[in-house]
């Protein structure tokens, strides 16, 4: 158990200290906020446009981060031989693998979490042809981003700590703070509107489902990384992702007509459509029973994560660990 927690914590820290996480987090949260700060003249669809794109960014960047994290934490360590040092200690391979998984998920989730907060903020800032950009909110947000870099530079200069890691973690905290303050303490009114703008809370279940999807994608990336390098892992994960997106169309329909191969593929392939409910969020509709749906999807998901982890384990348990030599 101690081996598992040690490896999980170490994997998480080693990942968030890589500059790529800070970079992804800064770039994507900024992009989401800028999306909300620009006028679209979208004929009333402005808010939906911002919603869809911010969640899509969260999902794709999360997929990318999961692949990068898994290949650096597993494939990379197998290649350089770090994993050999670790597995020569009293560490069962399954503890190693699960520790890696949890560390990867923690890092990926933290990144997705900031992106989701940015998406929620963006849903409040979004405006149509009659509105105005939320200059205060945008300024406060970018102030927080700048502050996180300053904090990283400060601890790096005075305490010789890792800049990227500290900047990323402080960014998560600062963005959370900004989100709470702007949402609950600052009133945002567009000129000519009587009601104040609020966060579109219907994004919460949508965001939860995205986090679920990333849980599964991380497990798939982990399984690939036990045998493959970064680029092949990225290719395999992308293929599984795309195939899963069209699963209903490509396999679901033939399956209904009795094609057994399609039925099996349809059952095994994760159906990403289940995790994508932003299309259901229409203008002013409330989503009835959405949380029950989320719970059901969670069950579907755990079966798939289980499969992915079992595959990962069976690929790893008897793998020759030779390092680069």
């Amino acid at each position, binding site marked *: 158990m*101690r*081996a598992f927690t*040690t*490896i999980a914590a*170490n994997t998480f*820290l*080693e990942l968030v*200290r*890589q500059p790529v996480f800070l970079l992804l987090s800064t770039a994507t949260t900024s992009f989401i906020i800028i999306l909300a700060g620009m006028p679209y003249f979208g004929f009333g669809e402005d808010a939906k446009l911002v919603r869809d794109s911010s969640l899509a960014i969260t999902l794709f960047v999360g997929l990318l981060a999961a692949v990068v994290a898994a290949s650096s934490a597993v494939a990379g360590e197998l290649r*350089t*031989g*770090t994993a*050999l*040092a*670790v*597995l*020569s*200690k*009293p*560490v*069962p391979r399954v503890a190693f693998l699960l520790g890696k998984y949890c560390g990867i998920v923690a890092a990926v989730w933290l990144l997705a979490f900031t992106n989701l907060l940015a998406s929620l903020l963006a849903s409040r800032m979004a405006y149509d042809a009659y509105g105005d950009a939320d200059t205060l909110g945008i300024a406060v947000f970018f102030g927080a981003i700048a502050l996180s870099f300053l904090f990283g530079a400060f601890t790096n200069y005075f305490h*010789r700590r*890792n800049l990227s*890691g500290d900047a990323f973690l402080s960014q998560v905290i600062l963005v959370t703070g900004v989100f709470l303050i702007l949402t609950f303490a600052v009133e945002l009114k567009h000129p000519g509107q009587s009601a104040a703008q609020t966060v579109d809370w219907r994004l919460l279940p949508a965001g939860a489902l995205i986090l679920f999807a990333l849980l599964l994608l991380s497990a798939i990336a982990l399984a690939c990384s036990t045998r493959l390098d970064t680029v092949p892992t990225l290719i395999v994960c992308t293929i599984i992702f795309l195939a899963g997106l069209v699963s209903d169309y490509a396999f679901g329909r033939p399956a209904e007509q009795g094609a057994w191969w399609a039925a099996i593929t349809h059952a095994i392939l994760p159906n990403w459509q289940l995790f994508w409910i932003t299309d259901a969020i229409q203008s002013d509709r409330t989503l009835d029973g959405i949380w029950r749906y989320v719970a059901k999807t969670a069950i579907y998901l755990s079966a798939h994560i289980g499969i992915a982890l079992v595959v990962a384990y069976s690929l790893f348990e*008897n793998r*020759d*660990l*030779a*390092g*680069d*030599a």
Partner: protein
Amino acid sequence: MIDLTENIEKQPASTPTDNRENVVSVRALSKVFKDFWGRPKAKAVNDVSFEIKKGEVFGLLGPNGSGKSTTIKMLLGLLNPTKGFIEIFGHSPRHVKTKERIGYLPEESYLYKYLDSRETLDFFGNLFQLHSEERAKRAEQLLEMVGLNQVRSRTVGEFSKGMQRRIGLAQALINDPDLVILDEPTAGLDPIGCREVKDLITALANRGKTVIISSHLLSDVEDVCDRVVIYYGGKIQAMGTLKELLTERETVRLTLPTLPREKMDQVLAMIRKDVAEDRIQIDNPTQNLESYFLGVVKRARENEQQTSGATSGSTVAHYLREGGEEKDQKAKILDRLAADLAPTPIAELLEEKPATTEQKQDANLASLAEAEAPKPVAPVVSKAAERKASDEKADDKLSSLLGGDN
């Protein structure tokens, strides 16, 4: 092919060597690396058998690519053997619990590059479920030992290759292992580092630890190994104690202080009676480069010159030693004695205690004459056994001298 395994087996069963517990047994071990399609790609290890006893320092020698690392990775359960049998402490190499007793330095020690040396040792200590105070204490001593305590706040990713080796060595010892496996421990180390590694290995062996080291640098293993195997192309080409492998039984070397001219002539005249001129060789022994280099650096250090690289760790970590400071002192004496004994191979021929210089010389001359007669093969065996016995006598003497606790 020199195969001395037979000779070893023929030794009388009464020697304590044979009663020692087997730490590692390897029988008919082979490893074939396969490519993606399952076709054989490289036969890295080919039908290898050996045994390693408790307390032995065992050297795996061989050129690059001869299968040393592959053998070690199989011993650790990292690679699965294609064929053959391995047992470590009486268990399969995949047995997780056994690994609590093993320390391993991989040939490439890339550790976590964003951790500093302190955190690195803490991480590995945690894998052994050590208490936090114990971890801190050991990390402190190990960093002192490998000479990295001045750069402890720098991350391992910024370390030079030699510094990486040092931190790798430190992590291998965090659990105070009974079996230490070092894959090319001196690769990338400066001569001082090499010397320290060798001293460390000696210190570990003095505590009854078993050590396996692999190397392609012969000078590395020469001073420290009890027994070696020499690999070539994945096969064992030779195996035995260094003495067995290296002693030239047909020649004798006499080392003595410079004699006055006429004394020298007398001695030579005596020898020339029996030996052809062209078979006698006289020269001044030269220091080897290593000891010369160490001398130069030692002098420089005494003059307090500054360096920004790794400093040399002075002492073996406290917890790796037997007891307190007093014992440390003893270890040093032991090392010195051992070092003094080493360069005079003739002393090994002495059955009796080496008491005075005259006695020594007499005996030397006696054995000199004796050695002249060509030896049939059979007596060599008993000779080897005798030497072993005399070695053990010397060891006993040393240990009784030191209080007999090692």
